[in-house]
């Protein structure tokens, strides 16, 4: 438990500094990238589904897998589309 707390607190510091470094022009992609990576709870869903001892638990976990997967794939797809549009002046 203490280990997890340490990780939590240190992550908060990393998050704080990394996010302040993001340029305001990219706040929309920031949201969709963080959307995508917050889908990482799919790990929990995958192992819950894989080791479920009852059908009800498995169904819950599988629904969570679908939802998190939409989040992940959709988030990265939208970010990629947005970021592809950010260009500097075309070189002549």
């Amino acid at each position, binding site marked *: 438990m203490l280990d997890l707390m340490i*990780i939590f607190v240190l992550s*908060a510091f*990393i*998050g*704080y500094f*990394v*996010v*302040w*470094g*993001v*340029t*305001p022009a*990219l*706040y*929309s*992609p*920031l*949201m969709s*990238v*963080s*959307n*995508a*990576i*917050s*889908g*990482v*709870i*799919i*790990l*929990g*869903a*995958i*192992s*819950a*589904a*894989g080791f479920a001892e*009852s059908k009800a*638990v498995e169904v*819950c976990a*599988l*629904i*969570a*897998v*679908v*939802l*998190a*997967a*939409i*989040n*992940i*794939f*959709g988030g*990265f*797809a*939208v970010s990629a589309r*947005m*970021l592809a549009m*950010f*260009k*500097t002046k075309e070189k002549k």
Partner: protein
Amino acid sequence: MMSGFLYLAAAVLFILSIRGLSSPKSARLGNYLGIIGMSLAIATALFAVPAERLLPIIFALALGGIIGVISGQKVKITALPQMIAAFNGLGGGAAVFLAGGEILSGGLHPLATSVGAVIGALAFSGSMVAFAKLQGILSGKGLKFKFQHALNLVFSAVTLVLFVAYLVSGQTELFWMMTILALLLGVLLVLPIGGADMPIVISVLNAYSGWAGVGVGFMLNQTLLIITGTIVGAGGAILAYVMTKAMNSSLKQVMLGQNSKSEGNSSDFSDAVAKSGSPTDAAFIMENAEKIIIVPGFGMAAARAQHAVKEMADILRKKYHVDVRFAIHPVAGRMPGHMNVLLAEANVPYDEIFEMEDINREFATADVAYVIGANDITNPLAKSDPSSPIYGMPVLDVGAAKNVFFVKRSLGSGYAGVENPLFFQPNTTMLYGDAKAVTEAIVKELEK
């Protein structure tokens, strides 16, 4: 042991993917690093699952993946805010289902599970309401009714009581009641919030989906979830802070729906007359200008005028050698960075686009400020009238330019319900009409 190292690698890649967003140059690489990290993490998790149980999981993964990619590819750029809100909600929903499953299997971590469930439920239902508002299914205006605050307060208090009662007693019925109540609370909290406060709400919901992930991470003893959830939670919190700062409101005001009240309107301009002009007049003044600053707002997004604006900027620059720049207020639009994305879609290079604090003093030397579909973010009352609801909000100094053009549908006040005295200033010309139609008419004149 091995899987631990792979998860660590994924965590590092996630951090680098956010880090990449510090500049548009490194951002695309950042996105790829995020994708690699996620693939690594998912593969590692799948590897641990007994082979005979893999099939339904792969199927669920593929189903979600296909839905996600298709909706992500198909969505129009103008519909991005609601898409992001929807994705956000699904992440929260996933946390709720995970927590529910944990309870069904007799979970050992009631505190973490409850945190994951409650915050996930708030993120889910709140985001769905935000989605419905942005999509136009629900009215974009804040929905208010009597005793709303009291009701929200009661709901929050009961949720909290159930939370504690569940932790003490371990009765799972309490857990389910608490989760359902949190779902309702998410709806109630977002309903009263109006369109212009959306950037804040989306940021807050983004943070929630991160914090829900942290709860699930503690529940499952999974460090990667804690690290990622915390970073996402911090990101959403920082965005919400930046947005509230840019509106000079507080999170409390927005969450209680107090921002959109507009009674304190002390300034009366009913006698004043605003001068209106035609696109021809505007084109004539712009041709002869040396420096033009374009200020886009939500109206540009609503009219999908970004391509016309880009065309106007190009022709002014190439044919008339005008210095054209774009000025962006942090809360213009419906999500953080909304205007930047729209202008990027129209191929406006990002080095011609400036944030408020970098360009505000340039208005004094500009010949023209072309304000398209924005109002409150230019309103000088924010500086001069302490009784105004928007007092203290940093605004773009468009009034300092020699000529100001407002492209607007009508003389109506902005979202905040405050009259804009700039409309009645002698150097202001109103160009009434649809943002796109007006801009296209100007382009036509400029081409002559």
